[in-house]
C-alpha cells in the first residue's frame, strides 16, 4: 500500500521528464513505437554550436547581473524590515513582495514603451526588471535567515536585559552590552551573552537546589 503510493508519486514526478530524455537521444521516433528505434548523441553536439554557446553566455551574464543587483538589495531590505518599527516594516515587506503578485508579462508589456521613452539601454532595463522580480526571493531568504538568528540569541539578550533592569546584575557584563538590541554584525557579542547567561543560570539552579537541600554536589554536572 505504502509502496504503491510511493511508486505512483515517483511516476508522477518522473514521467513527464522521460519523453524529453528519450527525444534528446533519439534519431528518429515515429508514432507507434514506444521507444526510439535507434539512439545517438547527435543532438547534444548542437549544444556546441556558436549560437547556443553565445545564448548560454548571454543568459549567464544576465543571471550574474541580476544576482549582483538583487542579492545586496534583498539583504538591505531584510535588515530594514527587521529594524523598522512594526507598521513601516509591514509596508516595506508588502512592497518587496508586490512583484510576486504582478504577472511578468504584464510588467514587461507596461514598461516596454516607457523604457523606450526614457532611452534606457535595453540590457539595463532587462536587468532592472528581472532584479525587481527576484527581490522578493532574496529579501525573504535573508529575512528568514535573520529570523533564525533572532530566535536563537534575541531571547537570551532580552532576558539578560530584564535581569539588568530589575534583577541581579548580569555577572561580568557591562550594562550596555545587555541593553543593545542584537543584530547580525554583533553575533560575537551575542555568543558572549549566551555564555554569560548560561553561567548565570547554572549558578542559579545550583543555589536553588542547595537551598531545597535536594541535590547533592558533584552529580548533576
Amino acid at each position, binding site marked *: 500500500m505504502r509502496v504503491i503510493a510511493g511508486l505512483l508519486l515517483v511516476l508522477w514526478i518522473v514521467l513527464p521528464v522521460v519523453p524529453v530524455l528519450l527525444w534528446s537521444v533519439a534519431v528518429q521516433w515515429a508514432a507507434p513505437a514506444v521507444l526510439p528505434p535507434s539512439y545517438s548523441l547527435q543532438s547534444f553536439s548542437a549544444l556546441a554550436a556558436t549560437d547556443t554557446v553565445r545564448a548560454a553566455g548571454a543568459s549567464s551574464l544576465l543571471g550574474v547581473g541580476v544576482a549582483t543587483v538583487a542579492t545586496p538589495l534583498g539583504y538591505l531590505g531584510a535588515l530594514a524590515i527587521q529594524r523598522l518599527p512594526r507598521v513601516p516594516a509591514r509596508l516595506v515587506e508588502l512592497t518587496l513582495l508586490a512583484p510576486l503578485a504582478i504577472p511578468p508579462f504584464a510588467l514587461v508589456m507596461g514598461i516596454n514603451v516607457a523604457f523606450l521613452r526614457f532611452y534606457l539601454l535595453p540590457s539595463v532595463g532587462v536587468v532592472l526588471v528581472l532584479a525587481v522580480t527576484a527581490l522578493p526571493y532574496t529579501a525573504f531568504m535573508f529575512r528568514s535567515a535573520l529570523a533564525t538568528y533572532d530566535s536563537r540569541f534575541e531571547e537570551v539578550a532580552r532576558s539578560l536585559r530584564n535581569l539588568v533592569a530589575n534583577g541581579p546584575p548580569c555577572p561580568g557584563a557591562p550594562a550596555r552590552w545587555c541593553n543593545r538590541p542584537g543584530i547580525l554584525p554583533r553575533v560575537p557579542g551575542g555568543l558572549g551573552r549566551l555564555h554569560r547567561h548560561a553561567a548565570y543560570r547554572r549558578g542559579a539552579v545550583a543555589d536553588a537546589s542547595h537551598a531545597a537541600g*535536594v541535590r547533592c554536589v*558533584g*552529580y548533576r554536572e
Partner: protein
Amino acid sequence: MSSSLEFIGTSRSFGEATVLHEVSLIVEPSRCVALLGGSGSGKSTLLRIAAGLDDPSSGQVLVDGGDLDGVPSEKRGIALVFQKPLIFPHLNVVDNVAFSARMAGQSRQAARRHAMAYLELVHLADFAGRSAGRLSGGQEQRVALARALARNPRILLLDEPFSSLDSRLRENMYSLVEDIRSELAPTIVLVTHDRREASILADSIAVLDDGRILQHGPVAQLHYQPATLAVNRILGGLNAISGQVDGGIHHSVLGRVRVQPGMVDGPAFLVMRQEAVRILPAGEGTAVGNVAGLKSLGAHTLVRTEVAGNDGLPETLTVEVSGDPGVSVGQMIGLQPVNGSGWAVIR
C-alpha cells in the same frame, strides 16, 4: 489492568556509536522502576524502543511475555510522556488531552468529557480552553502527562516528566503519581536524573551508565549496597575509601570495618554514605579527621574531612549533618560509622 515489561539483551547503535549495550531489565506488573543515569546514557533511547518509536539493533522487548517486534506504536498500549512536552499546537488544551479518545473513534463531546477528568487530575481544569501556545513549561508538561494518562495505558513511560516543575508542584505531582498508581496501577518506567525523585516514586531503581545497566534493585539496596563505585557515585554517594579486605574486615584510614560476607580478600573500596557517618568530639570514634571544608546544602551541611591513617596517603571523607555542624575548618574531630558494618566494592 497492567502488564509486565521486559527487555532482553536490547542493544541499539547509531552508525558506529553503540548507545545501548545488551540491556536486560524486568519491570513487574504494576511496579514502578526508576531509570537513573547521566545525560546521554541512553535512557530516552530505551524508552523509545519500548514505545515502538525506534527499533533495537538486537534483542527483544516483551510485554506480558509476548514479543513486541513488528507491533506498531499505536497498537502497543504503551504511553510515553516525552522529555519535551510535544503539545499539539493546533489543538487547545482539552483537545490535546482528548486526542487519544478521538483517535479511538469517540465523539468530540465524549472525548472532551473524558479529558476533563484527567485535566482535573493535573490541576489544569481551568486551562481547558487555552490554546496550546499559551502555557508555561510546567503546564505543558502536566498537559502531556494528562494526555498520556487519558489513554489509560497498560504501561506508562515517563521521560523526566517533572524536570521543569517548581518544587511545590513537583511534590504535588509525586502524590498524583501515587494516586494514579493506587487507582489505575499501570506499570511505570520513570526516567530521571534526580535520585531523590527516583527514591520517592519508584519501587526499584535501575542505574544506566553509558548504555549498560549497572545495577537494578530496591531503593535502599542501591544506596547502601551499590555494586560498583559508579553506582555509588550516580546515587550521590561521596565516599569511597581505598583499603584492603582481609577475612571480611576492611582495613583503611577509617580503621577496621566489618564488610558484607562473601567479600574476597584483596584491595577494595569501602563505600560509606555521607549520611551514615557521625561526627564526634576529637578523641572519640574510630578515626580522626581534620575538617577541610564546609558546604551548606541549606538545611544540611557537608563537612569535608581529611582522614590520615597510620600509613599511606590521607583520604577524604565527607559527612552530611543536619543543621549546624558545630565545627570549623582546621578543627580535629572524631568520626564513626553509624552502623557497625560497611559495604565494600572492588571497582
